[in-house]
């Protein structure tokens, strides 16, 4: 299973990728996580690749083959959409961080509707939640990344068990942060379950 995570430096994408990687090991899979360090992290766009399976070779996802795209920033969805395979799943955080340089240069920021329309040409499985607001409401604004992990898991397309994700979280965070992130994960799950419910019954 190939996952692409995209967003902006500082949003906790590396932590998210490492959580998926550790959970994969707990579940007994082979895994490769490709990260971005250094200059690109300074407020630049960040893309991480996570590959999980019985045997994984390259750390990089091939264009057009990601089973899932998780984007922590709205417009960054567009930058990584090329990796998505037909009928893959897209989970988007409806949070806009227009880059200062594009404001200076007068480059327009894409609208949510246009982004969704673009993604829907590849797949009908597009989930949009507002992870920042959910995390803020929980009193832990920094855990928006784990809200997104819960959302990704709730789509049923992530090849990882909840139990192993929690084990990975326990290894990564201290006790207090672990509890907060567990709640963040569950809220992410609920947000997607609500979307699925609304879709089914309306």
């Amino acid at each position: 299973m190939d996952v692409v995570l995209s967003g902006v430096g500082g949003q906790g994408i590396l932590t998210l990728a490492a959580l998926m990687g550790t959970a994969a090991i707990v579940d007994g899979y082979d895994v490769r996580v490709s990260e971005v360090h250094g200059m690109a992290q300074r407020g630049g766009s960040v893309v991480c690749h996570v590959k999980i399976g019985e045997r994984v070779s390259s750390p990089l996802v091939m264009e057009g083959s990601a089973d899932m795209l998780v984007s922590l920033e709205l417009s960054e969805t567009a930058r990584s959409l090329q990796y998505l395979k037909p009928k893959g799943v897209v989970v988007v955080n409806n949070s806009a961080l227009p880059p200062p340089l594009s404001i200076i240069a007068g480059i327009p920021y894409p609208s949510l509707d246009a982004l969704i329309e673009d993604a829907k040409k590849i797949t009908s499985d597009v989930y949009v939640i507002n992870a920042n607001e959910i995390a803020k409401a929980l009193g832990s604004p920094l855990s928006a990344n784990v809200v997104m992990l819960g959302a990704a898991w709730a789509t049923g397309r992530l090849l990882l068990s909840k139990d192993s994700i929690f084990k990975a979280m326990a290894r990564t965070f201290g006790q207090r942060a672990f509890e907060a992130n567990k709640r963040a994960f569950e809220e992410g799950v609920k947000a997607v379950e609500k979307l699925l419910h609304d879709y089914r019954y309306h």
Partner: protein
Amino acid sequence: MKGAGREVVLMLGNEAIARGAIEGDVKVATAYPGTPSTEIVETLASLAKEFDDLYVEWSVNEKVAFEVALAASYCNLRALTAMKHVGLNVASDPLFTSAYTGVRGGFVIVSADDPSCHSSQNEQDNRIYGLHAYVPVVEPSSPQEAKDLTIYSLEVSERYGAPVILRTVTRLSHMRGPVELSPPNRSRKRGSFERSPEKFVCLPANARRMRLEAIERLKAVESEFERSKFNTAEEGDPEVGVIACGLAYVHVLEALERLNTIRRPSILKLSTIHPLPRDYLAKFLESKEKVLVVEELEPLVELQVKALCHDLKLKAEVHGKDLIPLAGELTPLSVLRGLASFLGMSVEPPEVKPRIQAPPRPPILCAGCPHRNAFYAIKMAVRKAKVDAIYPSDIGCYTLGYYPPFELVDTTICMGAGVGLSCGFAKFTDKVVIATVGDSTFYHACIPGLINAVHNPSAFVLVVLDNNFTAMTGGQPSPATGVNAMGQQVKRVLPEEIARACGVEFCKVVDPYDVDSTTSSIIEAIDYVKKRLGPAVVVARRPCSLILLREHRLGRVRLEKRKVDADRCKGCAACIKLVGCPALIPRGEKVMIDEASCTGCGLCERSCPYKAIEVVKE
């Protein structure tokens, strides 16, 4: 990283190299931070408390790092030095001659290359250093192999007395994968140096003999590599072969899965790149009609395989860079295309062309970065002094001053070139020269240039952006910090003291958060260099904003964070356009300030024409 059992841990390639150093009894590890190599010695520094026989240092530059580790090896201790590809240019002087003297304790030089220039000024292929300097080179294909090859390199180095280069690339250094831990194998060795000047003094008379010894050592290593278990051959089509080097191997595996060939080619995974195991290769090549060499960047193996086929009169037609890209890192897709064309197959890789383009998002200076204030002050000073200026700069976070709204970076070449180029620009043009370099870069390579500017008088303004740390690579201590890699409190080395000792007569220290006095000091410096007497140094000192935020969270400093009064904000975005701070976020028709990342530098408040930005009252 703890534990002595056969535990499997998800590890970064760089952490795996560090683990290999621990398991392989490395006693001394040195580096100058540089992406993508930094985490190797950073990990070892964090382990120095656990292993009291381990010495770790952030050296002032790669040449010094190399020499400190080489001394350890001369003292019969195992040593590792790690650097980014361009760092080895700085350390290349001792590299070449260390191959002449040979080594005693196992000595590994990790060269972390950066294909695609993710965080670098070029994408040179450092495997070529091996050929040039008579130094063996190995190249892993996974984090597990990175650990194993680190240990193997230490053993080979010690057995044959040759320094060994372990070449990694960004995608390996910054890839996480499962790594099986083995118990650390720590000896009780202490350093001891037996004097033998005929071995370590490269006088011409000795050097001529040593070159012959280096050639012999390389031959011995070649026969070792002939039987290395890190090279493997997978039998497939006897007439069609692929030779895959280092990380290229895993892209080849992935591409072959996609191609789903009926006749899978034979695959030779090559981990020992120099000297090439020629007999081993010849055996693989013998029956082949055609072979594709897949390697990252230069056709180093390809050219040698071609030569080998010529020498041995083998019939194989050798392909490589005619089908695999020469520039940029390899990707599964680029290897798939090359391999398909080699096998005469057609591929239609799934191509998705999104209609919407994401707005460009290059890296920018962090919220509250003191460099931003310094650039703002330079811009104001130049405007007020009504001069025409050129802006040489250097390698670090401040290279981002290249982008709007500042655009105050005219050159970036290599560590220290900001000062060296300024020596020239100040002499060969009539413009005012204002150079920017960081504290870590200043110690690394700027001091000889500054002495040169006094000795061969060159009048330029040098602004040392002293944020107390090597910030771009994640805040490692620099000589400005007062702490070292081992966590010892040490004497701070101050750029202004060095500048004065070099003979610089105009030298001022300012706080860039105080924009007015920074601006007036730069104006004074401009007036001074107009007299053409010599260089003027302005040290703009303020800790990195990431450090400031950390200190703030710990309650050690108070920051005057700013907020926007929504009633007064007209949404003109002048703050964003003039300051370009990522804490300024457009929200509907207004701008808001992200409180978590604001450090209270105050620039946005200055820039707001409607006085809508104010200090948050606690």
